[in-house]
């Protein structure tokens, strides 16, 4: 390999690609050629850095300087200034939300400084389409280790001792799951990687599949060896085209290199992996629905038992693990169970990747040790809440999860404490909400999602979530009635208790959780017909404050439905509530702040 003095790492995750990475690629190649730098500078397309709001993101090594929101037209300057003259292009550096200095090195940026990137350690650091780069960072060493030095039982033992738990939502102990599948009798067994990530706004698994596909292949192969399976499947949603393409490429490379196929490392162990695309049903993340879909049938769950470990894909014993779970496996093997068990809390070991979104300055993908507090995530990593607004709650675990209000900012984020608070780790979606968010509306949003995504097989989920949604819709439209809260709670209890699969069993959580911490907001909607956060438009009124009105006529002119009338220079003007559509245009335009939202 030739020596190259500069490495340009350009993010090619989905977000950065959408923001134009590929055009930047071309621009870089052009500029390098123009200046005859092709041999000195190496361009490395990488996976996701996690700092998606700042994308496209480019990292320049050896300095470790990070440029944000790079555009093709910036490349000329970067090449001339930075690569040729050694002068950092200040204006493209990241600026902390507190507005102080710009930060050049990635490692000094608050967003990264408080993270612990273990699962994501390769994401943004290597070219996911080059198996050599993965191997250079100890890739496939763990597989070599287990195939040549460990018995399957020893492997399961390591995973058990590490304390790794399923990252897909439920947090089931991975070692125990492997052990069940390992003990199941059957000539043919399967291992499946569940890449059907579907929570709104969550993209942890996508980033790993895009940024470090070999880690998943390696984890899957190790799992295969541990339980005695020669065939793995990766089930990934078709909506993740880049992940699909990278995984396909990685499988091809691994086969060519002999890391998949017959007699891997001369150990006599055969293992291969096939990719299967899902058609975008959220419910297919549920194990048994996934199995149906993978076998070509309608993606619907079935009752358990029998569990997949006994009767799974094509009725063979099957182990199903989530992407993030499997990506942890090679590191655990290499660094040892005690290392992993040393991270996190007593019962929740290791790190967890979260997709940080909502009312927060630094949105993106982060990884922290289990047990990290919300405060650290929101204020240290996330840079706090924009516009100086106040934190209200964090929604964790997506449509199956719940929300934590500010009293719990210092709670340890781990499986048990979240369940205790009526939320759930889920796959790691974390949405931050401030005072301008209506909790009833948030609950309605999530329920609308689960109702849409319910497969419709069992009664409580199919009809029950619909009825809950209808009650919430009524409440947000000002038609809530006394007794609605009790009805919601009662119905939620039955849906949780008697639905067929995890989707239905957790669908009421967002409602129950907001009812637990924000019941007063529900009551305000129902009794006072008022939305305290000012979100539910049916409950809003715009009114002119007579003392402030100057009768300047601006409001009447911007109103799209002629709902405001008055005589010029004879204040006050009046908003006719029966015509007003609550668009807020008048308030936005009033030069005197004379229009109030009540």
């Amino acid at each position, binding site marked *: 390999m030739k020596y190259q003095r500069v490495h340009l790492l350009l993010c090619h995750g989905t977000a950065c690609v959408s923001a134009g990475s590929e055009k930047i690629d071309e621009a870089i190649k052009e500029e390098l050629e123009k200046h005859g730098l092709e041999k000195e500078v190496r361009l490395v397309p990488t996976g996701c850095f996690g700092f998606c709001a700042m994308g496209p993101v480019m990292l320049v090594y050896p300095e470790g300087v990070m440029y944000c929101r790079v555009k093709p037209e910036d490349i000329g300057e970067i090449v001339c200034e930075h690569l040729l003259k050694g002068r950092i292009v200040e204006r493209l550096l990241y600026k902390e939300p507190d507005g102080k200095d710009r930060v050049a090195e990635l490692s000094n940026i608050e967003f990264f400084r408080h993270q612990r990137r273990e699962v994501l350690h390769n994401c943004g650091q290597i070219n996911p389409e080059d198996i050599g780069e993965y191997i250079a960072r100890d890739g496939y060493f763990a597989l070599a280790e287990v195939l040549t030095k460990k018995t399957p039982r020893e492997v399961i033992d390591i995973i058990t001792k590490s304390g790794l738990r399923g990252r897909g939502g439920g947090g089931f102990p991975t070692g125990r799951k492997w052990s069940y599948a390992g003990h199941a009798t059957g000539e043919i067994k399967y291992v499946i990687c569940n890449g059907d990530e579907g929570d709104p706004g969550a993209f942890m698994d996508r980033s790993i599949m895009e940024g470090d596909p070999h880690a998943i292949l390696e984890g899957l192969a190790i799992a295969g060896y541990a339980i005695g399976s020669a065939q793995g499947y990766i089930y990934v949603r078709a909506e993740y085209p880049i992940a699909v393409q990278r995984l396909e490429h990685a499988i091809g490379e691994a086969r060519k290199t002999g890391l998949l196929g017959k007699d891997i490392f001369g150990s006599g162990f055969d293992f291969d992996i096939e990719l299967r695309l899902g058609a975008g049903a959220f419910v297919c993340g549920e194990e048994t629905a996934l199995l149906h879909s993978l076998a070509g049938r309608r993606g619907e769950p079935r009752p358990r*038992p029998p569990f997949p470990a006994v009767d799974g894909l094509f009725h063979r014993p099957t182990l199903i693990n989530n992407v993030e779970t499997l990506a942890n496996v090679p590191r655990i093997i290499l660094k040892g169970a005690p290392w992993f068990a040393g991270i996190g809390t007593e019962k929740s070991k290791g790190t967890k990747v979260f997709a940080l979104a909502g009312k927060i300055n630094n949105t993106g993908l982060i990884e922290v040790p289990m047990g990290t507090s919300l405060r650290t995530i929101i204020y240290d990593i996330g840079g706090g809440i924009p516009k100086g607004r106040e934190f209200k709650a964090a929604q964790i675990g997506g449509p199956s999860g719940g929300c934590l209000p500010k009293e719990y900012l210092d709670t340890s984020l781990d499986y048990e404490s979240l369940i205790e608070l009526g939320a759930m780790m889920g796959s790691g979606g974390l949405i931050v909400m401030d005072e301008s968010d209506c909790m009833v509306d948030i609950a309605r949003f999530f329920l609308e999602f689960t109702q849409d995504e319910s497969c419709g097989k069992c*009664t409580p989920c199919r*009809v029950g*979530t*619909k009825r809950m949604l*209808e009650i919430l819709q009524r409440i947000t439209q000002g038609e809530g009635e006394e007794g609605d809260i009790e009805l919601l709670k009662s119905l939620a209890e039955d849906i949780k208790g008697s639905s067929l699969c995890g989707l239905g069993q957790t669908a009421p959580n967002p409602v129950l959780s907001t009812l637990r911490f924000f019941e007063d907001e529900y009551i305000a909607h129902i009794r006072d017909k008022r939305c305290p956060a000012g979100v539910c438009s049916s409950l809003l009124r715009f009114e002119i404050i007579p003392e402030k009105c100057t009768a300047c006529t601006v409001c009447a002119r911007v109103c799209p439905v002629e709902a405001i009338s008055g005589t010029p220079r004879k204040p006050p003007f009046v908003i006719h509530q029966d015509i007003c559509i609550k668009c807020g245009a008048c308030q936005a335009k009033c030069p005197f702040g004379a229009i109030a939202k009540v």
Partner: protein
Amino acid sequence: MVTLTIDEQKVTVPEGTSVLEAAWKIGIDIPSLCYLKGLNEVGTCRVCVVEIEGSKTLQASCVYPVAEGLVVRTNTPRVLKARRTALQLLLSEHPQDCLSCYRNMNCELQALAHRFNILEIPFRGEKREPPNDEKSVAVMREPAKCIRCRRCIAVCSKVQQAFVYSAVHRGFDSMVSPAFGLSLDDVACITCGQCANVCPTAAIHEPDNTKEVWEALHDPEKWVVVQVAPSIRVTLGEEFGLQIGSVVTGQLVAALRRLGFDKVFDTDFTADLTIMEEGHEFLEKLKSGGPFPHLSSCSPGWVKYCEHFYPEMLEHVSTVKSPHSMFGALAKTYHAEKIGVDPARMVVVSVMPCTAKKYEINRPEMTDSGFKDVDVVITTRELARMIREAGLDFINLPEEEFDEPLGIASGAGLIFGATGGVLEAALRTIYELETGKEFPLPQYEQSLRGMDGLKEAEVEMPQGLIRVGIAHGTGNAKQILEKIKAGEKYHFVEIMGCPGGCVGGGGQPILSFRRGWEGSMDYRMDRADSLYKAEQELPYRKSHENPEIKKIYREFLGHPLSEISHKLLHTSYTARSRYPLSKTKV
């Protein structure tokens, strides 16, 4: 064996039993709705939930396997509330038009609402109001009444293997539907009506044709003739509370007369005629060397299955019409002339165990009399409704006899109503015609009768050994057809579209599925047994001995397979696609 505790009672059951079955065994009546043991074990309705110690959520007992030491509670407040809620949720999207519903008083959902004392439904909200599918003349759907139990999917795909139904859409919009939301009339529905039989509500049933019958009966201009299929006399009693398999031939005839039919005839007569025609057709094939196997044609459900799924086998299917179609053609020619009634004013009504026959009478081929051969088909269930409406005390009616001449039949015609009956009847005749000796029935009874899906036998004929086969339910038909295509040799194969033959027809009284699918096959067997018993009391037991059959050949048809026979009693078939649109004539 596994021992578990249900509501503090210990119960020992075989491994693999469901908690629900185990509870039923000790008299704990867990309610169920979607469950149909052996056919539909999916746990969708959630009405049978129970508490299982150690499980956070409630479990559907119909699909939860027993395990040693399992502790189950079936009537805790939590369980009862969840069951009520599931029912109330189902009702909240249901039309709740019980008073004017097809299945009023015979609906599993209604019965459970009653059992759970549901006096109010706390949920209001959207009801899906999908339009009814009324295009098919044989089977209609009221999707708004569907509770998504999926029994129809199970029976259509597992038993009949016609794969008409599947679950479509998601969430609240999810429903059961033929492909692409098409009408049953536009897909490869074989119109057998088995889906209607297993449906717990009125989401699937036959279209009601009783109105047309009443109109004809009340029209003084019309001469209304009714014929009754063999199996009706052993099933109709169930509609009036009699035991399964009760024989009610005399009451049936009496009831039909009181309803106002001008003549009450027996389809068994034309069943005998079928044997004469089809028997000779088969003997011709024996003589000319094929094509074999010869496939029977009296089940219109099977015929349509063959047209859709095995069009390449249609040349093997007997050209003989089904018995009731033959009857229609003869009633409007031979009989009309004999009694001096203008066939244009004659209305032929068939009481059939069958929904497929509603389709069959509308085939363009079924007009050989110059008119529509049969005007209306009503099912056993529809006849029961007419009898109730007329206020007849059915059980206590004096027994009466069928009218002559089309009411005289042999036992061979009667056993057409059970699987294997057609073949047995055919053998009784062709064996005797060829050998001059009586068919040695006792040695074949075992292999020709009963509810095994596939049956077969070998019979020594002067032409050599012939191999015969029997299949009932089109899923079993598929099996035997695949064997045939793989090269297995049969000479004569009887195929009935419905499981059990006509006694299990899609138009028969709705069976209780409490004992599961296997149990329903036992009920079908009970009905069939009654046919075999009733047959023994008849004066003639072979079709060719029926004096009226001899007479009709003498007076009208000449001989089997004569020109006029061919014109009136034989038909042709249409190759149809498994998929919508293409339709070609063979």
